[in-house]
């Protein structure tokens, strides 16, 4: 009994001894800033961790921590916003997610911070920054990007007697035909029939899914039909296949498995192919030219400060550091591409020539984006109508009519369905 009392007593004293300095420390403890992003590859996570560690060293008043969100990134973020407990800094994604967070006020305008810090936006590629600017309000500063580029298997090209990568649609089609061998489960072109993999064909024909201001659907134009029909016909003629036909889940995997001679992916496929399929040779080229141009889709991401942040000023300092011209170069190491024009000549790219054609594609890359309210449209409607056309159940024209009509309906309802 006595022993027990003594023990409790000493524990209490010990605890208070520990607690006392903690209280003192708290008074000038660094401000915690939580930086969130979807959990990517180890490389990506490693880069962010390293950047934040370096930041913390040079900024003793701020302690930034990285919080990778695994699973459904936007869904989990939304639930954290509902709880009023979102991270201080989040990563805005392409494909319509950024406009949703922006127009609902989940992320705060950065204009005042940009002004105060004399931060220049001029160095960013327009494709990377424009998506996060609405009118004159800047909601996010670009983190990384990747345009869609063409991945080739040079061994297959050589075996088929094709000297170089296709430079026009006609060559693309002809090459895909030569490279296809259904018996061996090899197709000239393997790709999921999703809009972020066919939108560029519309642009190359002079059309697009929506107008640049995203206020009108433009799928009913002859140019859009031309680009879409070209894409659908690749499948109808049997020279393109869905990844699942060859037992893969995406184009990059099909290429790595040796079932695809060509596919379209972003820079993210580089570390994947090198690590997972080191024996499969691959080459990256800019997209072949359509009737009008060889425009590509771009997939930029950006850092933004949330409305739930208690310390927006400190959060801005973290963003300022992460996107600063000196630090942004770390981004290039994991299948990500720089968002700064001034960095495309940096030594890293000289030592890794595989990135050269990705950089060459950058000036002709248009961000993949949709306005608020298009979540369902982007997630299922586009894919479903395209799949029906690929399977020959409806014509390309019917598919586009459906998509045009449903998109107009969403726009008419004021961006919410």
């Amino acid at each position, binding site marked *: 009994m006595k022993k027990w009392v003594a023990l409790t007593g000493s524990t209490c004293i010990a605890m208070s001894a520990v607690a006392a300095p903690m209280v003192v420390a708290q008074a000038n403890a660094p401000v915690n800033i939580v930086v969130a992003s979807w959990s990517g590859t180890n490389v990506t996570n490693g880069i962010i961790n390293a950047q934040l560690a370096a930041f913390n060293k040079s900024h003793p008043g701020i302690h930034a921590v990285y919080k990778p969100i695994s699973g*459904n990134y*936007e*869904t989990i973020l*939304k*639930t954290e*916003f*509902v709880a009023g407990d979102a991270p201080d800094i989040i990563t805005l994604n392409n494909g319509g997610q950024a406009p*949703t*967070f922006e127009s*609902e*006020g*989940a992320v705060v305008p950065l204009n005042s911070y940009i002004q105060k810090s004399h931060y220049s936006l001029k160095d960013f590629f327009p494709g990377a920054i424009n998506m996060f600017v609405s009118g004159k309000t800047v909601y996010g500063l670009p983190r990384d990007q990747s345009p869609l580029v063409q991945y080739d298997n040079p061994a297959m090209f050589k075996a088929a007697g094709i000297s170089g990568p296709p430079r026009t649609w006609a060559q693309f089609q002809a090459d895909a035909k030569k490279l296809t061998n259904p018996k061996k*489960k090899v197709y000239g072109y393997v790709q999921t029939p999703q809009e972020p993999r066919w939108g560029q064909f519309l642009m190359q024909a002079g059309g697009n899914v929506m107008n640049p201001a995203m206020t009108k659907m433009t799928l009913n134009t002859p140019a859009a039909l031309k680009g879409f029909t070209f894409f659908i016909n690749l499948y109808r003629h049997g020279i393109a296949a*869905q990844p*699942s*036909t*060859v*037992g893969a889940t995406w184009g990059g995997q099909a290429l790595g498995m040796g079932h695809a001679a060509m596919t379209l992916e972003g820079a993210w496929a580089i570390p994947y192919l090198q690590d997972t399929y080191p024996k499969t040779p691959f080459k990256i080229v800019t997209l072949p030219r359509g009737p009008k141009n060889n425009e590509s889709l771009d997939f930029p991401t950006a850092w933004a400060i949330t409305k739930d942040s208690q310390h927006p000023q400190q959060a801005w300092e973290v963003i300022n550091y992460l996107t600063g011209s000196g630090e942004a170069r770390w981004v290039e190491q994991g299948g990500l591409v720089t968002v700064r024009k001034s960095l495309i000549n940096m030594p890293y790219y000289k030592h890794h020539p595989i990135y050269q054609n990705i950089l060459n594609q950058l000036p002709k890359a248009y961000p993949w984006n949709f306005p608020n*309210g298009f*979540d*369902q449209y982007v*997630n*299922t409607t586009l*894919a*479903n109508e395209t*799949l*029906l056309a690929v399977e020959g159940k409806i014509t390309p024209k019917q598919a586009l009519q459906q998509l045009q009509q449903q998109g107009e309906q969403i726009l008419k309802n004021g961006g*919410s*369905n």
Partner: protein
Amino acid sequence: MSVVRVARHETRGGIRRWHRKETAAAYFFTLPTLILLATFTLGPAVYAFFLSGVSWNLLNTMHWVGWGTNFKQLLTMPLFWTSVKNSVVFAAIVMPTQTVIALIFAVILNQNLPARGLFRLAFFFPSISSSAVTSLMFMWIFNKLGLLNGLLAWFGINGPDWIGNPRFALSSIMILNIWSTSGYFMVVFLAGLQAIPQSIYEAAMIDGANGLQRILKITVPLLRPSTFFIVVMGMIGTLQMFDQSFIISGGTGGPLNSTTTIALLIYQEIFSYGNVGLGAAATVFLFVIVLVFTILVNRWLGKPIEY
């Protein structure tokens, strides 16, 4: 001591007071569970009912639009009826199949067979595995170049792209679900079988009943309490199927909405598309369906056994 206590309780007021004290104590002891139930089960259920009358996308401010608006929009939505069809077809095929398979295996494994324990473990194993893991496993089996098509190729059959083809995708998930739940229900049936007195079988054998007759006339009717439990649990489980569709279709319910179940649609509407009101309305709809079916099953199988 005890004499005194009895004497005190003999008066009426005493008994009433004792009752009240007992009730208070009972509530006191169940309070932690009641609080948990109210906070995490009853509360959210009531809240979901409230949410089915609002317009909210999780990020903006919620406002009341009335139940009429949301339910009208839900019931006129083609995708909703696709999901209802998928869920009902799924339940109508999976629930009876898994019940019959579970019964057959239970009867077989109730015999004195060699390596009985090993087989029981093997059949039970899928149900204690994570559904995420088994879904991924079946994605490989059902892959266009996967195990199943490899097997079919031996017989000269060019197997379809099971998961990528809208005609086969839901069936693939049905097979997965039957495989993963039959084992669990088999164990329930096994427990039920042990409770049937051996003497009844012996009496039947003396009367000249053959094996099949013994199963159909004795085993099946006397297993009714187990069957009731299995049918109700199986029905609720299949009508609420979410995880396997979610993982196999990558959250889209594709291809062509062929694997969109009601539960998956609820998730998509609330968390992906920002239509919280619609999703909550679908939740209420699912609750009503499950309730009605449960009441019907209860009428059919819920009676006590009469020997």
